[in-house]
């Protein structure tokens, strides 16, 4: 018999330094604090220290997971680490994390490169490992230092994105049963959200005297927005039907990737989800890419009652999207 997979515990870590709207408006005087707060729904974001990287944040989130939930790290038999800002081209960040956390060397470990859909993809991979009998206790980490990809003159991206890491334990028992997945990909939108330079195809081009913006994160906001308008309603519908559910009223909670509050409210109304069923948490951490879903699940954890269902939806860079339905135990 195939083993069922569950989310057993979630913790997350936010870096110490906080970038407030007040500080942003000082740099970009054409914006007002109220406007940023109202339109994007973000009051502050956390920014990693200059010498703080994806592995460091992954480790801090994992240590919080072990401490807050009394988890024995010796039980971890697989590490999945989602990042688009790894410490190195190679080796895999998850290997560094294994050693520094003291997880047994008998554990498997790998990084995977996804963004806003990354947590749902991680749940899918972890469920596969458990159902296949390959692992029993998967440490699923999301960790991003997008701030290091963003140029300081980029008002839009600096407003939206914050750094964060999350750590979840996916196991053969837990508080939320992982249901059926809907996953999708449309690489035709690959250059709407991209760091073009710095890897093999096109190396870093900035010099001491000349800044090359292609070395930094680029987002075609209108392109990404139109993608979500087209993709997310059917993602929700297909995720429901894969889980033998019909209509948005068949689910108690909706947890969408926290892109920005304006876009989420538009999507929510378009799909016909009531505000009280739609969980948000980005006001004090911003869009933290693959960490937004676990942060929302953690922050609203006390709302989840036995038998209730939550639909998770991640969508963005790639383009890539994924949905799942959790059933709370």
């Amino acid at each position, binding site marked *: 018999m195939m083993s069922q997979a569950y989310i057993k515990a979630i913790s997350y870590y936010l870096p110490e330094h906080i970038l407030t709207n007040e500080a942003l408006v000082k740099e970009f005087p*054409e914006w007002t604090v109220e*406007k940023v707060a109202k*339109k994007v729904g973000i009051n502050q974001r956390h920014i990693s220290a200059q010498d703080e990287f994806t592995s460091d944040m992954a480790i801090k989130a994992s240590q919080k997971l072990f401490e807050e939930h009394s988890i024995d790290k010796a039980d971890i038999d697989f590490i999945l680490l989602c990042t688009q800002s790894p410490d190195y081209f190679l080796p895999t960040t998850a290997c560094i994390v294994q050693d520094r956390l003291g997880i047994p060397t008998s554990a498997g470990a790998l990084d995977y490169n996804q963004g806003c859909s990354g947590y749902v993809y991680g749940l899918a991979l972890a469920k596969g490992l458990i159902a296949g009998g390959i692992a029993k206790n998967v440490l699923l980490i999301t960790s991003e230092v997008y701030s290091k990809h963003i140029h300081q003159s980029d008002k839009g991206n600096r407003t939206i994105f914050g750094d964060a890491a999350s750590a979840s334990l996916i196991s053969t028992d837990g508080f939320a049963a992982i249901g059926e997945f809907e996953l999708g990909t449309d690489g035709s939108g690959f250059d709407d959200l991209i760091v073009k330079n710095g890897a093999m195809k096109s190396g870093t081009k900035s010099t001491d005297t000349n800044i090359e913006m292609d070395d930094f994160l680029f987002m075609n906001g*209108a392109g990404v927005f139109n993608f979500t308008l087209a993709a997310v309603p059917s993602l929700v519908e297909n995720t429901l039907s894969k889980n033998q559910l019909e209509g948005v009223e068949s689910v108690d909670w909706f947890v969408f990737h926290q892109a920005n509050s304006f876009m989420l409210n*538009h999507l929510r*109304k378009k799909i016909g989800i009531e505000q009280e069923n739609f969980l948000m948490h980005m006001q004090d951490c911003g869009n933290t890419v693959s960490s937004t879903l676990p942060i929302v699940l953690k922050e609203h954890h006390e709302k989840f009652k036995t038998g209730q269902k939550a639909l998770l939806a991640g969508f963005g860079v790639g383009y890539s999207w994924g949905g799942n339905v959790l059933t709370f135990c």
Partner: protein
Amino acid sequence: MNKEEFIQFFAEQFDETEPEEFKAETEFRQLEEWDSMVALMVIAMIDEEYNVKVSGDDIRNSTTIADLMAVVESKK
């Protein structure tokens, strides 16, 4: 499509620019308040009110509100 209504919906996406400043011939991308966030709000408004998806290029290629209205009309 009602021209006055479109201009009103368009004007509602702005906080600081006075509603009476918006006319069919207004060159909206020249407005001080215009930025990428307002552009997203205009895309959302057109999706919500007219069930039409305009692209970033559609907006960049429009000079006046009337130009954008013509794009929406052509996509209906």
